Every structure is written in structure tokens, then in C-alpha cells.
């Protein structure tokens, strides 16, 4: 086992009956890494997590963990923890008993058990709630019980399926830092699923973007945010002007147009609204919409390329609806897309 592949998925294919949900997935994760799985609904995030945990049989391919082939190892022998989106706390047991559940199954008893459970509860700030039933807790507290319940087992990998999506905005931020803290303190390898790109960017060491049961891009938050490899990822991380390239040129309703600067070799280009220059350039557009966003102002332009979104500093003089403007899409600033779909 090399250090770079503590957990590795090799040509992993997962199916529900005859419907393939994840196909030929390859992924290597380092020990102690915090990975975010990002992607639209139905792209196979939960399916992949369930296969890593052993809850879903693998159709073909391998799951390797810490040097051992886990593909056929049953879920209760894998040392993989999973925090469910619904928390899945045991309703008939107290908070304390929930956290103690797995430890007792390991045969732990008496003072050793109590010390561990108390430490687990303390680490998520729930020591004073030990005797409550799950139904008597708020969503955020339930979430933390679920986290403690998995963490006391000292899993090799902890999986979290949309751990924050049931929480309100403030609690979400709180839990976000909490997760990061627990991960840094314990050094557990963690994979969490999210729909929220801001969450992924803020938390993860690396982000895995999935689409239609396959990985679209793997990279650091900076990679994903600044250098999306495909129109799909670019769209996901907020590049709103995305165009295909034909022989280094952009297609407009009036024919192909050369870009200013060196002609790039890519399947497509993408610009964030902030990257569009207004006032000069080879393109011309009409202001169709404008909105003020405090520090900046956004314009929606009708152009021969189609709709363009531009964002400029609010301090600059405003353009009226219907105004004709020159603008530029600087090739030097664009993200180069190797895949356009």
C-alpha cells in the first residue's frame, strides 16, 4: 500500500438490479484526508458511499482499505463508519446508550466503556444530554450524537452523507467547523457528500466532482474553483459564461470570432462574470438586465454569442437597460475546458 492509496476504489461498478448507477470508478484517497463528494442529485454519491461501507454489494471492481481487499468483507467487519443524512439514531436508546452501542458489541464493559462514551459525548459537547432520548434533541444535537456514535468506534474511514443538509444556515456553519475540528484532532480519513459547493470548498482537502455515475474531476478546492476541466464542473462552480471552441475561435450568430490574446487549444472556455471586461473589446452586447449586489453590479447582456453575464465594481458608472456596450472575454483569464458537453 502506498501512502497515496489508503482507501482505493478500483474500476468500481455498482448497480441496482440491471441499472448501473456507478461505472468503472477509480479513486485513491490518502490516510487522514478530508474528501468532499460533490455532484447533482442522482449522480451516485450515496451509492458509492454505501459500497465503501459494505451496505451495497459490488458488481465489479474492488474496494481496498489499509492494504486489504474489502470487496467481499461484510459491513460489520470493515471498520468503516457512516453518518446517515437522517442520523439513524436508535430511538429506544438514550444518547449514552446510542454512543455505547458499538463499543458494547466489541465487548467493552465497565469503566473502560464509560470513559470512552463520556469522552465521545464531551468531544461533541453533549455530556449533559447523556440521558435524553433522541426524540428529545434538536436536529443539530442528533447530528452530533450520530457523529460521536461513529467516532468512538475509531473507524478507519468515516463517511458522512449530506451531514449538514438538514440544519439551518447558522447551525450548518457551526457544524462545519466542528467537523473540521474533529477530523484534524483525530486524523480520521473522512469522505462527506454535499450538494453545496461552498461547503466542499471550505472543508475539503480534495474535492471529487461526480456526474452520471462517474468522476468528472478530482482536485484541490483551488483546482476545482479555478481550473475546472469540463463545462459541467465549470457550471457547477459558478462560471456562468461557458462556450465551445471551434479551431480556437468562438462561434457567434455572425460567424466565428477570434479571441484577443493567444488562441488557446481547448474544447471550450469559461469565464466567471467577474472576468468579463466591459467598455472595450471585440464583442458588442445590449443590456437586458441589471442587478445591484452591494459591492458589485451584474449585467445580463444580449450578444451574438448568446446571453453573457458580467459583474463589475458598483463604484463604476452604471449602464442603463437597452444600452449598447463593447465587451471582451479575455482568453488569458478563461478556464480552459478539455471536455465540453
Amino acid at each position, binding site marked *: 500500500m502506498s501512502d497515496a492509496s489508503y482507501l482505493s476504489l478500483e474500476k468500481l461498478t455498482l448497480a441496482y438490479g440491471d441499472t448501473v448507477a456507478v461505472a468503472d470508478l477509480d479513486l485513491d484517497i490518502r490516510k487522514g484526508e478530508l474528501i468532499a463528494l460533490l455532484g447533482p442529485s442522482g449522480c451516485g454519491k450515496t451509492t458509492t458511499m454505501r459500497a465503501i*461501507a*459494505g*451496505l451495497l454489494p459490488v458488481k465489479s471492481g474492488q474496494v481496498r482499505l489499509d492494504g486489504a481487499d474489502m470487496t467481499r468483507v461484510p*459491513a*460489520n*467487519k*470493515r471498520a*468503516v*463508519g*457512516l453518518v*446517515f443524512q*437522517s442520523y*439513524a*439514531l*436508535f*430511538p*429506544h436508546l438514550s444518547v449514552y446508550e446510542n454512543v455505547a*452501542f*458499538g463499543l458494547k*458489541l*466489541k465487548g467493552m464493559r465497565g469503566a473502560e466503556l464509560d470513559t470512552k462514551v463520556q469522552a465521545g459525548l464531551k468531544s461533541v459537547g453533549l455530556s449533559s444530554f447523556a440521558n435524553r432520548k433522541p426524540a428529545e434533541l434538536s436536529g443539530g444535537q442528533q447530528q452530533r450524537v450520530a457523529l460521536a*456514535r*461513529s467516532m468512538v*468506534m475509531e473507524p478507519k474511514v468515516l463517511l458522512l452523507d449530506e451531514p449538514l443538509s438538514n440544519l439551518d444556515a447558522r447551525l450548518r456553519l457551526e457544524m462545519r467547523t466542528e467537523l473540521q475540528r474533529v477530523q484534524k484532532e483525530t486524523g480520521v480519513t473522512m469522505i462527506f457528500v454535499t450538494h453545496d459547493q461552498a461547503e466542499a470548498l471550505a472543508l475539503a482537502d480534495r474535492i471529487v466532482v461526480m456526474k452520471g455515475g462517474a468522476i468528472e474531476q478530482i482536485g484541490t478546492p483551488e483546482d476545482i474553483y479555478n481550473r475546472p476541466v469540463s463545462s459541467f464542473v465549470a457550471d457547477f462552480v459558478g462560471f456562468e459564461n461557458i462556450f465551445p471552441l471551434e479551431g480556437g475561435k468562438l462561434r457567434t450568430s455572425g460567424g466565428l470570432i477570434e479571441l484577443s490574446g493567444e488562441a488557446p487549444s481547448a474544447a471550450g472556455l469559461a469565464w466567471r462574470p467577474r472576468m468579463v471586461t466591459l467598455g472595450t473589446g471585440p464583442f458588442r452586447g445590449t443590456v437586458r438586465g441589471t442587478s445591484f449586489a452591494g459591492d458589485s453590479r451584474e449585467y445580463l447582456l444580449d450578444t451574438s454569442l448568446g446571453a453573457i453575464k458580467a459583474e463589475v465594481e458598483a463604484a463604476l458608472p452604471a449602464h442603463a437597460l437597452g444600452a449598447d456596450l463593447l465587451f471582451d472575454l479575455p482568453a488569458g483569464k478563461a478556464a480552459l475546458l478539455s471536455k465540453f458537453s
Partner: protein
Amino acid sequence: MNARSLFIPVTLFLVIAFLIGPFLIIVAASFSAGETLAFPPQGFSLRWIAKVFTVESFQASFAMSLFLAIGGTAAALVLGIPASYALSRYKLPGAEIVRTVVSAPIIVPGIIVGLALLRYIVVPFQVGITLALFVAHTALVLPYAVRVVSASLDNLRSDIEEAAVLLGSSRLGAFFRVVMPNIRGGIMSAFILGFVTSFNQVPVSLFLSGPGVRTLPVDMIAYMEIVFDPSVAALSSLLAFLSIGIVFAAERFLGFSRYV
């Protein structure tokens, strides 16, 4: 008050009178001092209540009914809990057919079930009367067991079993550790419902009863054909109060009505 505003109270009164009336008549008749079953009762005495406890065949048939109600319901639960679990947790082919077959005894009239069991099982295979009654009562209670247990399983999210497995439990262990404790109320409710259903069951038992082996209701009918004294009314009253007591206790401690 006009006729319209009287309609609802009058209807309500009639409904209650029809439901409770016969019961009140029976209760009143059990305290009669007279020799025959009559209403209004003649005088007041506890002699018929006392007599119930001295009729030997009542004791035997009460024991039989109790055995069938407890044993048959327990057997129905032993079969019904795993069946409900499989039906609710796995997408089995033919699950709908299983559901229908299991609930058939509710839909098919008891007389037909009894006749069918007698004609095609008891007679050809020479099955003993007690065994035949036991099997019949199990089958009659099974639909209630499956219904009630399924209802409480459907209220229970299935991911807690997966959570238990990931914490080191086996699948079977997860069933006993986290499923059973959470459907306990449903199981108790199913037991009570099954018990009452079995205990009050007449048509099937009528067909299957034989010499010396009878359930209590069947025995009461037989008794009445010979002796027409108020002791049957007294016994009915006792049984009714017992049932009411059980259901009240169940509602009080289990929230029975949630499951039925």
C-alpha cells in the same frame, strides 16, 4: 329546537342504544334471581355469577379457549413478525400475493374456513381436534398480526438497522437489538387484538370442535341448547368486562389505538 337540530343527537342516541343496549340487557339479566334467562330480570342475586364457576364444562372449555388464544396468537406472531419484516424491508417478488393470502382469513367467512379445514384437512388427514383448532386459530390471527406489526415496522426507518450493522452487529443481531425493541408496542397490540379475536371466534371453532374438546363460546351455545338459565348471560358479562379491561389497559399503557 327545530327538527334539524334534533337530528344529530337523536341519531347518536339510537346508535349508542343499538350498540350498548344488548350488552346492558345481558348484564342486567345476569343478576336476575329467576330461573330462566329473561329481561327485565326478576329480582337481584349473584347466584348465576357464582354458578358459572361451578359448571365443569365451562372450566374445560375456558382453559381450551385460553390455550388457543394465547398459543394461537403467539404462533401467529412467531410466523407473522418475520413475514411482516420481509414484506416491509425487501422487495420480494410476489409480495402482494403473500399479503393477499395472509389476509384471506379476514375476508373469507369463518363458516367457509371452518368447513374447508374440516373437509380437506381434518377428515382426510385424521388431524386431532386440538391440533386442528390450534392451526385454525393461528391462521385466523395471522392477518391481524401481520397488519399491526407491519404498521409499526413502516413507522420505523430501516436505516437504523444499517447503522447497527456498521457498528458491528450482524443482520440478525440488528433485528433483535434495534428492530424488536422499537416495535414492542405494535407486537403487544397485535397480541391483544389476536387474543380477543381468537377468544371470541365462533364459526370456525364450531366446525372443528369435537367430543370433549370445545372452545368457550361453542360450549356456551351447547349449554344454552339444554339449559336456559341466566348463567350464560352471567358468563358473557364476565367475559365482556374482561375484554373491556384488557383493551383499556392496553390503550392506557401502549397507545393501542395507534396500531389498529
